């Protein structure tokens, strides 16, 4: 958490960079893995959400079996069907929403 230069006037202007799990029913182990993966991916491809999503998906497929779906974006809506215990909806970097789920 770092404060912006003119943060003195408005204390609200704090940029959060940490990942924040909004909704998840994954197991503890899987969730940490997913969060870590998305953090690395978003940091690696900070300009290209598509590549980041691909990286997350492929890594998740490798680790937890195929048919994962990943959406990364700053503003979108979704209504999905997922296999139970495989969804993870994360906010990251203060402006990105990452949704990971599995459905074959």
């Amino acid at each position: 958490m770092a404060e912006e230069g003119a943060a003195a006037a408005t204390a609200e202007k704090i940029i959060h960079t940490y990942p924040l799990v909004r909704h998840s029913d994954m197991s503890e182990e899987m969730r940490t893995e997913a969060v870590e993966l998305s953090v690395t991916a978003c940091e690696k491809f900070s300009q290209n959400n598509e590549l980041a999503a691909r990286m997350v998906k492929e890594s998740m497929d490798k680790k937890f079996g195929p048919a994962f779906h990943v959406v990364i974006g700053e503003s979108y809506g979704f209504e999905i069907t997922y296999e139970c215990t495989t969804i993870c909806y994360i906010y990251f970097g203060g402006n990105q929403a990452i949704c990971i789920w599995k459905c074959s």
Partner: protein
Amino acid sequence: MLVEPAAVEEEVIVVKPRVRKLANQFNFCERAALTYNFPRRSVETQTIPPPRANFGSTALQCIIFDFYQEDYARKMREKEEEKPKRLRKKKEKHPKSAQQIHDEQLAQRIREAWAILERLVNQNIYDDIAQDYRYWDDPSDEFREGMGSLLPLWRFQFEPMRSHAVCDMQWNPHYQDLFAVAYGSLDFTKQQKEGCVCLYSIKNPAYPEYAVVTESPIICIDVYKETPYLICVGCYDGNVCVYNAQLSLESSYQYKSDSVRDKHSNIVWEVRWGARLIDGEASFFSVSGDGRVVQWAVMPGELRATTIIELRAPAAPVPGPDGTLITVNSCGSSICFHPEKADIFLVGTEDGAIHTCSLKYNRSYVRSCQAHHMPVYRINYNYFNNSIYASCSGDWRVKIWEDGRDEPLFMFELGSPVGDVKWAPYSSTVFAACTADGKVYVFDLNVNKYRPICVQAVVSKKAKKLTRLDFNPKLPVIVCGDTKGTCHVLKLSPNLRVMVKPPKKAQATDQRTLQIIKLDKLLTLVRDPPFTPGVVEEKFEDD
């Protein structure tokens, strides 16, 4: 083999000679068999598809921002709550209504009135003793050159602790009339179940001012000089506690060592308050039979232990099972801090050694010498000369030592295990010792280097033993405790507390300097020439 069907039917029994027919292309037939065909059937099963659920949401910058804000606020709140959690719990434990508070205040005022009444009654009852204490000086002292006596004054007893022994006692450094007593038991075959910490005032010999019964017998006690209401105690079960005499009795101890994590595994033989730590926390030290010297930092709400040194026995490591070597710990029995150098301390052990240790080294001793043959019960530094200390032991001896010297300067045999030895705070050459046969010995090395100037039987030899004694820092009285839970306050007769007269040339010299000069003069007799036992004997006789 083919047989004609007709022949088979008619002559079943007749066995024809087998005729081998030649196999050729005309006489050839094919053999084949048809097996039964099982009817086909399809069986199938379907697993329940993994459960699915629907989830929908909208990711918008505003939603993300709001959620981050919420989470951040929660985190900050948690951080704040983390610290005072324990304190808040305590507060919640005793929620008091206004009525209760009022009742308590009323009770407190009544209690105060009663306390005054009690003092009045006591003053009347013990008037003669109080008069003796104030004015009576043994007149026979004038005629007995260099001999003194002790006048028994009050006797303190706490009824529930009749069968307990006074294991330790100490005058309060701030209030002259107050002393703290630790009740425990020194009979290890019939160990008591509980102990007691009492504070007695000589203004009220009937009942202690403060008494709290503890779960385990108390073996040692020390009153904190800076805040004289804090008392640290060492228990028979290896725990150390800090009691706050200002708190109500229900709260009992204020701090206690963790019974699981860091208590001693043997009796705590002596506790001593030490200097404040760098962060300003008070700390005290304990020495125990498990061979550890532990420093306890009094943190808010808990005691934090640090092992300062583990006392190793001089014996070689004992081979354990599967080839490991186990070093034998020797049992610490007493500890004494250097009055000026806060990191130097002496540890007496049950095998009679006195180790000079430093807080800076946790593996080796600064010095070590085999001082006694039995457990060292007490080491006490002289109040005037920081390099002189006295030690007493179960081998009947009291020895006076100088730092850095392997042989004692003086040695006295008292004919019974010596429970305690203390230097007098008013004179550099006076010290007192109490023995298991119920006698108090007072020595003044300036008057007599070989014999005590006072031997007085305080308790009867058969029933009781004297355990500990302590000089009052200001008043001319000592207190000594016995194994039946009684504390005896004795007044020192004038011959036992002679002050040095300033020489005519320098009348203005203060008493302290004179005392130091007196001791130094005495020590030069012993020190020079270099100490060897034989030489000293002669030297003494020359005097």
